């Protein structure tokens, strides 16, 4: 007997790669439905106040216009909660901003009308004819000013167990009495996800109470739930399809006003409606990484043991929704500090709501923490890697629990070697190559290894192939490919004989794609459903062949599309024959979240990023010349797509460190960065050949696959690695991102 070929871990090509590169993949704005019409949003031009009037006459009379919907004529959506009634409550009914229901303006470019026309150009033209009249009120969009009214999130006030509460271990603010002290402030600006694909939805009322949405979302089931509630419909009456998502990075984790608008527009026009945001609108109404101020105070002994850390953060949110994220989580568990204080606050501004952006709060927090670690190492005249090793944690200092697995030291070793860390000079500004100063820096990242609950369904088809289905989306990481590999190994089938279908809310329940949790969560469900399918096959084989019926379970071999028995050369049943004999077979399993192990162990993925940068002595331009990312993410299902994830995350980190910066003119409360010529994301020339290394050790407790998640740790820690390298190159410490040339000349 030959051992079945293993697919897990292999750099298999993406199952949908061909579709994507040939244009055969259909995205949310590409569904051509009969009678399809186009919707364009009209945004407010003030940041706060009241809409005293809205002139829609010219728009309504413009050629091709089918409907102009405003708060004066919008149909009521029975399940919506009024906007901002309780900003602390996570909204479960559509967008947190209930559009077209009142005259209040809460942020600039808030949708005040939606225009529907027979062509996009006509809709866009008519939208420009809609004129709002306003009674403006004094707005606040400036975080520095808003900080004065910063508050503890309501969720923390209500729930003493919320991680958003103040945290304390050891003595409060003990840094004051430390031997070597550091006290610094760090700021990250608002950053916008800006996936290549703009936010888009095609809304189709198939019947007055049946809605189909082709929507850019990271969670088909969450979107279904939100809009079913918004319209007071049973969930099964709403179907959400998101087969292909052209990147999201978090901005499709939430239901947004434009989705509500498209659905309302489709109702009013009684036609399927397509609505795609413009790049300008991507800044204002579909979330962003919030502008955040942080302060780190740290003390250490002269021999490099941290004695105390106090880390505070104030993040921006909107006035109608309290968005919180885990900015301070990494600080509480990364280093062995006996005394530790964290305080998390929000500042509510007249802006649209933020939403998690890749590596979310942790990436923001890591910029402050990992910069401070570098600053402290410098004060101590210690190598920053050595300083981290002296404060390494062998168990979670926050909970006292053992790690489910932790190979961060191994990551340190791998990364330091590859980047050439031994070339690093302790003194900044010491290495010069022509007109360029050269420096090295490192930054560490961590993110909870979450496993949620999920279902998966599997069906063996008469031709011997297996169809798996899950409502999960694949926003680019290669979910479909990884699941195919997991199924292939579990079933003993070639990947080509497996079809994994995703991105449809009618498929087996799955969580929203986010928080690096999909392989951890859906992977085990796929594995379990495949095991269940094998049980079924064994049963079927037993019915036709007594040898199988009497065999011990572990003696049945599944390989090469057949069941065989070890030690029995004649017993052999093909999958195809079995399914023909049974007249079809289908199984669905419910896979459970990690209960008990989650109680016993602290579960995290870890990463470290090492950067070498070059800074031009005269122009202050920074180029990342080397970037090495090493991850302890448990088992790697697909070396290629996982490596891809790491590289993409690192490029995101380069953007965060060096260029991404959405700017509001506070006088108008309006963005002045409005397109990708103003808001820079890295181009190829900004990314070196990023090297990725995985420890690839299975975690024994998160799930049976041994995975821990990659998506977030790919970004967390990259920005401080670059900032620290810039310091090492130049002696200039930039504590407010991005590190643009103006800050270095």
């Amino acid at each position, binding site marked *: 007997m030959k051992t079945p070929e293993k697919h897990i871990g292999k750099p298999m090509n993406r199952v949908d790669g061909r579709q994507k590169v040939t244009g055969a993949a259909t995205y949310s704005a590409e569904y051509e439905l009969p009678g399809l019409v186009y919707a364009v949003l009209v945004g407010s031009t003030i940041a706060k106040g009241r809409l005293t009037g809205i002139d829609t006459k010219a728009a309504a009379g413009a050629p091709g216009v089918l409907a102009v919907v405003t708060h004066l004529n919008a149909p009521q959506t029975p399940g919506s909660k009024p906007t901002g009634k309780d900003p602390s409550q996570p909204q479960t009914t559509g967008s947190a901003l209930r559009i077209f229901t009142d005259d209040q303006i809460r942020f600039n470019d808030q949708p005040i009308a939606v225009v529907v026309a027979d062509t996009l150009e006509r809709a866009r*033209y008519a939208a*420009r004819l809609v004129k709002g009249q306003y009674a403006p009120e004094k707005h606040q969009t400036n975080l520095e000013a808003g900080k004065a009214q910063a508050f503890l999130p309501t969720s923390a006030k209500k729930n003493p167990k919320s991680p958003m509460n103040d945290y304390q271990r050891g003595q409060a603010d003990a840094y004051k009495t430390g031997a070597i002290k550091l006290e610094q402030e760090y700021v990250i600006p608002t950053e916008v996800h800006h996936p290549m694909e703009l936010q888009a939805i095609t809304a189709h009322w198939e019947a007055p109470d049946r809605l189909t949405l082709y929507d850019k979302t990271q969670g088909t089931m969450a979107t279904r739930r939100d809009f079913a509630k918004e319209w007071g419909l049973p969930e099964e009456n709403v179907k959400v399809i998101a087969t292909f998502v052209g990147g999201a990075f978090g901005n499709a984790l939430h239901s947004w006003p434009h989705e509500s608008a498209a659905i309302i527009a489709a109702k009013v026009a009684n036609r399927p409606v397509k609505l795609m945001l413009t790049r300008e609108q991507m800044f204002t109404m579909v979330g962003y990484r919030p502008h955040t101020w942080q302060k780190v105070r740290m003390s250490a002994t002269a021999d490099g043991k941290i004695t105390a850390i106090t880390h505070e953060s104030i993040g921006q949110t909107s006035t109608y929704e309290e968005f919180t994220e885990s900015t301070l989580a990494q600080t509480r568990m990364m280093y062995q500090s006996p005394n530790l204080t964290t305080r998390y606050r929000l500042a509510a501004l007249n802006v649209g709501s933020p939403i998690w952006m890749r590596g979310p709060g942790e990436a923001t927090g890591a910029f402050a923490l990992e910069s401070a670690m570098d600053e402290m190492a410098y004060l101590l005249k210690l190598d920053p890697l050595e300083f981290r090793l002296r404060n390494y944690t062998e168990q979670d200092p926050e909970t006292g629990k053992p790690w489910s697995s932790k190979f961060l030291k191994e990551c340190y070793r791998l990364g330091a070697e590859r980047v050439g860390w031994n070339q690093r000079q302790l003194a900044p500004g010491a290495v010069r190559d022509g007109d360029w100063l050269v420096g090295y820096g490192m930054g560490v990242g961590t993110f909870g290894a979450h496993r949620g609950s999920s279902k998966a369904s599997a069906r063996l088809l008469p031709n011997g192939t297996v169809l798996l289905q899950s409502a999960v989306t694949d926003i680019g990481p290669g979910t479909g490919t990884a699941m195919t590999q997991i199924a292939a190994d579990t079933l003993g089938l070639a990947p080509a004989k497996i079809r994994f279908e995703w991105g449809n809310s009618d498929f087996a329940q799955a969580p929203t794609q986010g928080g690096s949790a999909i392989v951890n969560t859906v992977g085990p469900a796929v594995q379990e459903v495949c095991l269940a399918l094998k049980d079924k096959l064994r049963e079927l084989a037993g019915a036709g062949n007594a040898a199988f019926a009497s065999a011990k379970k572990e003696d049945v071999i599944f390989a090469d599309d057949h069941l065989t028995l070890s030690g029995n050369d004649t017993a052999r049943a093909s999958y195809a024959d079995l399914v023909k004999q049974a007249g079809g077979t289908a199984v669905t399993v419910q896979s459970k979240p990690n209960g008990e192990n989650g109680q016993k162990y602290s579960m995290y993925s870890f990463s470290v990023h090492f950067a070498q940068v070059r800074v031009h002595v005269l122009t202050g331009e920074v180029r990342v010349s080397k970037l090495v990312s090493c991850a302890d993410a448990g088992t790697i299902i697909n070396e290629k797509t996982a490596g891809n994830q790491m590289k993409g995350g690192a490029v995101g980190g380069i953007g965060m460190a*060096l*260029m991404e910066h959405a700017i509001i003119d506070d006088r108008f409360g309006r963005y002045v960065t*409005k397109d990708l010529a*103003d808001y820079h994301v890295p*181009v190829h020339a*900004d990314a070196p050949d990023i090297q990725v290394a995985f420890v690839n050790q299975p975690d024994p407790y998160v799930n049976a696959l041994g995975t821990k998640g990659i998506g977030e740790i790919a970004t967390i820690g990259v920005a401080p690695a670059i900032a620290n390298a810039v310091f090492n190159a130049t002696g200039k410490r930039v504590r407010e991102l991005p590190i643009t*040339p103006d800050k270095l000349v």
Partner: protein
Amino acid sequence: MNQFQYVRPTKAQAAIDAVAKDANAAFIAGGTNLVDLMKRGVMTPQKLVDINRLPLRQIERVGTGLRIGALALNSAVADDRLVREKHPLLALALNAGASPQLRNMATVGGNMLQRTRCAYFYDVAMPCNKRQPGSGCGALEGINRMHAIFGFSDKCIAVHPSDMSVALVALDATVLLSGPKGDRKLAFADFHRLPGTTPERDTNLEPSELITAVEIPDSPFTRHVHYQKVRERASYAFALLSVAAALDLDGNTIKAARLAMGGVAHKPWRLAAAEQALVGQPATEAAFQRAAAVAMQGAKAFKHNEYKLRLGPNAIVQALKTAAAA
């Protein structure tokens, strides 16, 4: 986008007539700037006169100079053998601009006439004297990181964003125009204007005048040239500021120099006094620094672009150093 008429004449005169007849008409070449502005509602022509069929694409020697047709593509000019041989500075500047895709669409005439990237100009909900005279200058007390340090007025502090134009002004180019009143030539240095009290006018082009070509006289600046563009990412970004530098060296002595800056004024900014300061000097960093100091005389910054006062001289020195070593 507004409804508009669209015509595509094949003769220059017909194109000029088509625009002259209609106060709200505009030429369109590559469309890479105009179409964006139309989508944002910043420019709302009622008639587009597509000039792509006019025979204005040649790059040829004329007398002791090079004539480049107004419709020559940015990429074609940058790749042209004659251009690379005679005016490598122009090729460098062109290749520093935009992206290959855009350079394959953008034309020489359109590049000169591209409008400022000032964010207030682009947003019809914000004040901007250039877009709407009398509405105020949003940038003056707003976000003015990218704005001018030379030649501005209290009506407008925008900069001209073109890279190509910085090289052309350094190379003493001439613009060839054809209009209802006939043909004329304009020194490139006089083509763009300072904002003064009428920032709505970017150039001295008369209504319905067509750019037909630019001419660049032969010069000794065929080797020691450099276009230094400082930007926030390695490629595909407008300049924070830029410097076109050209040296004519005799051994290590500077016989003649050309120096111009982009991203610092409402027009490409020729630095004549600094050029003079270089003549007869040795090509050393010290001499470059002295010239840079001369170049920056009179510069004045606003709230967010103070860095340009430091970056400017540094970029000049870097450009000259690189040019000298070329």
